[in-house]
């Protein structure tokens, strides 16, 4: 199928036509025409490369009542994503080649985004011994990102070995930075509000201590380290220092940490319970600036669907996590673009190019992402109506779960279309399958 996208603005620049043919961008230019092509009117829409999420919980296998690879893929496509990384904390845990290949196959069957499995660092996420990282890397899923996300690889010796070991296949360890002894029973950011609300505090130092330790280890062994969901101003400082020293460290921030603060906990509504927790205004400001100056490389959703019963409860009993795929781009528009901190090329860089590079998806193979919008490149792209504003209604989300912290909030930006290798997964704002 051939598509002629008329009048889109690549990277928010001058309007141009984009001809999509054979899964690739055939041409970009003025007044293109192609016989038999389906025309997509994109006047006023911004074209960006398809987004890449480094951090997605798809819940399959194990909690198909909360999300499946298919429903999560649909949510991702609607959010403008063409690739998502499925976290390993499923049941069973994705700590073997068998499980990662199963997730990979489910993603292929859904066919809405490239589902890239993340492998567990340690067996069963238990932090005791390494999982078969090489077997997962060599599997059909070609795992390059390894993470015990949800748990910190707390043992420093084990972390060192993991960092070293994945060098053999250019992998990266994505660390959930949380010193477990400092966060026993933790419910929210430790500070003024936790003191008042009587919820056990999750100190910023518990995140920063692990990041500091791990950048030193990564520098020492010359390995790549990726830091998941950076949430504190202190973490940004440490990352800035480590990068200035040449440590191969990358980092991500979630949409919710760019927008929301611990004030949300005052309602005791667990839809705002997340790990790491929502932080202070000063932290939000610091992670925005860190993302703007590149200290933080990527926006990653940490999309964490939960069944109603896991959220409609007391705060302490509720599971941590919130939805993110369908609103991620809108929140980046609100917090980074409308504030002047990032331009559209910056958005493409932080949400597509850099995450693809971190995950080594930027090569020339079939699953190539984060490539520029240019003739000859794979046609992974999205069209965004940046001027549209809409109020989030969780009931209308494609995710199987409803735990959106943005319910009732008006946000800018609407993904009108998403193309995966030249095939629309979203058209007119609706999933095509």
């Amino acid at each position, binding site marked *: 199928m051939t598509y002629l996208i008329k009048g889109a603005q690549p990277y928010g620049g001058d309007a141009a036509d984009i001809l999509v043919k054979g899964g690739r961008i055939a041409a970009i230019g003025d007044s293109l025409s192609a016989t038999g092509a389906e025309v997509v009117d994109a006047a006023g829409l911004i074209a960006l490369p398809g987004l890449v999420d480094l951090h997605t919980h798809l819940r399959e296998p194990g909690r198909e009542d909360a999300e499946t690879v298919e429903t999560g893929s649909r949510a991702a496509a609607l959010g403008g994503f063409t690739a998502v990384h499925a976290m390993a904390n499923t049941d069973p845990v994705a700590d073997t080649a068998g499980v990662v290949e199963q997730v990979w196959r489910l993603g292929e069957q859904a066919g809405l985004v490239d589902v890239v499995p993340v492998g567990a660092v340690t067996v069963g996420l238990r932090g005791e011994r390494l999982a078969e990282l090489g077997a997962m890397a060599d599997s059909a899923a070609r795992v390059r990102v390894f993470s015990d996300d949800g748990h910190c690889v707390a043992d420093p010796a084990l972390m060192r070995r993991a960092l070293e070991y994945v060098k053999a296949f250019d992998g990266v360890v994505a660390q959930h930075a949380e010193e477990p002894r400092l966060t026993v029973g933790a419910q929210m950011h*430790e*500070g003024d509000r936790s003191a008042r609300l*009587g919820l056990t505090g999750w100190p910023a130092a518990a995140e920063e201590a692990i990041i500091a330790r791990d950048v030193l280890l990564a520098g020492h062994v010359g390995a790549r380290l990726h830091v998941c969901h950076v949430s504190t101003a202190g973490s940004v400082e440490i990352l800035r220092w480590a990068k200035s020293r040449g440590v191969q460290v990358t980092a991500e921030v979630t949409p919710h940490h760019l927008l929301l603060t611990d004030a949300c906990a005052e309602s005791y509504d667990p839809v705002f319970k997340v790990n790491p927790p929502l932080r202070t205004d000063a932290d939000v400001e610091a992670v925005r600036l860190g993302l703007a100056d590149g200290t933080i490389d990527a926006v990653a959703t940490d999309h964490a669907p939960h069944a109603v019963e896991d959220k409609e409860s*007391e*705060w302490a009993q509720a599971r941590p996590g919130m939805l993110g795929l369908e609103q991620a781009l809108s929140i980046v528009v609100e917090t980074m673009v409308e504030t002047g901190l990032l331009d559209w090329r910056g958005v493409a860089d932080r949400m597509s190019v850099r995450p693809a590079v971190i995950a080594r998806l930027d090569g020339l193979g079939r699953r190539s992402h984060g490539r520029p919008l240019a003739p000859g490149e794979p046609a992974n792209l999205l069209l965004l109506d940046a001027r549209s504003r809409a109020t989030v209604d969780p009931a209308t989300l494609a995710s199987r779960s409803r735990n959106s912290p943005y319910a009732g909030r008006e946000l800018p930006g609407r993904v009108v279309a998403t193309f995966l290798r030249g095939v629309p997964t979203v058209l007119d704002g609706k999933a095509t399958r």
Partner: protein
Amino acid sequence: MKRHLLESADLDRSDATLVLDTAAQIDQALAGREVKKLPTLRGRTVVNLFYEDSTRTRISFELAAKRLSADVINFSARGSSVSKGESLKDTALTLEAMGSDAIVVRHAASGAPHRLAKWVRGSVVNAGDGTHEHPTQALLDAYTIRRRLGRLEGVRVAIVGDVLHSRVARSNVWLLHTLGAEVTVVAPPTLLPVGVDTWPVEVGYDLDAVLPKADVVMMLRVQAERMNASYFPSVREYSRRYGLDARRMGTLGDDAIVMHPGPMNRGMEIAAEVADSVRSTIVEQVGNGVSVRMAVLYLLLGGSPQ
């Protein structure tokens, strides 16, 4: 008054004073009477929904409701549908479907009463939620202070002990501040929350320095589970530095009173001769608790148009 009593941080000065004044009138109306019962809440149903064992608080609420002629249902989580995994929400909706007008809830999770208040139409009274608040305890403490000292404005109150984990401390800090008292919290730094500097209190680590200036000393219970969690080196050291013994009591002003929300660890945070002294209001607090809870139930349920 609002429809619920979820936290004393919610109470403004006039609300709090109304509760105390109402309790005083109820006390006076019932004083010396043979029939300690009022028909006020006849036909209303109050549910005591207790997820934590607390016999004294439950009995106090039960007595308060019964003296106002409400029907009382005691629902203890143990041995009920809750122990079979029923959620708080389902339990609350079930109780309401059975016709409850108010739910008095005690729960180990901070904020559980706030969640309940979102789900039910009736009133919710917080009878202690996790390490958050215990507003009726603070109200009865304020009532006790006012009765003993005749005022709250300018009264200097020292709250001593495990402030970090204490819902009694939190409720008292906000309420006493609202009512014009000057509060000092005294504890080892490990048992004060990060962020205590934003509270409207003085913070002290040295009990001996605070006592001579205090009109009220409120001792907090030290939970057994803190004793082995490195919050302090040993029970003996805690007791030596932060326990109220006879010698320390001797440094108090002539009219100063000693309070404790109970249950006490005699010999740990409070010495037996202090607990039993004339300064101690500990038994009085229990009696005042019933009057204050009657006032709360009357004010929440008495006139609420359903």
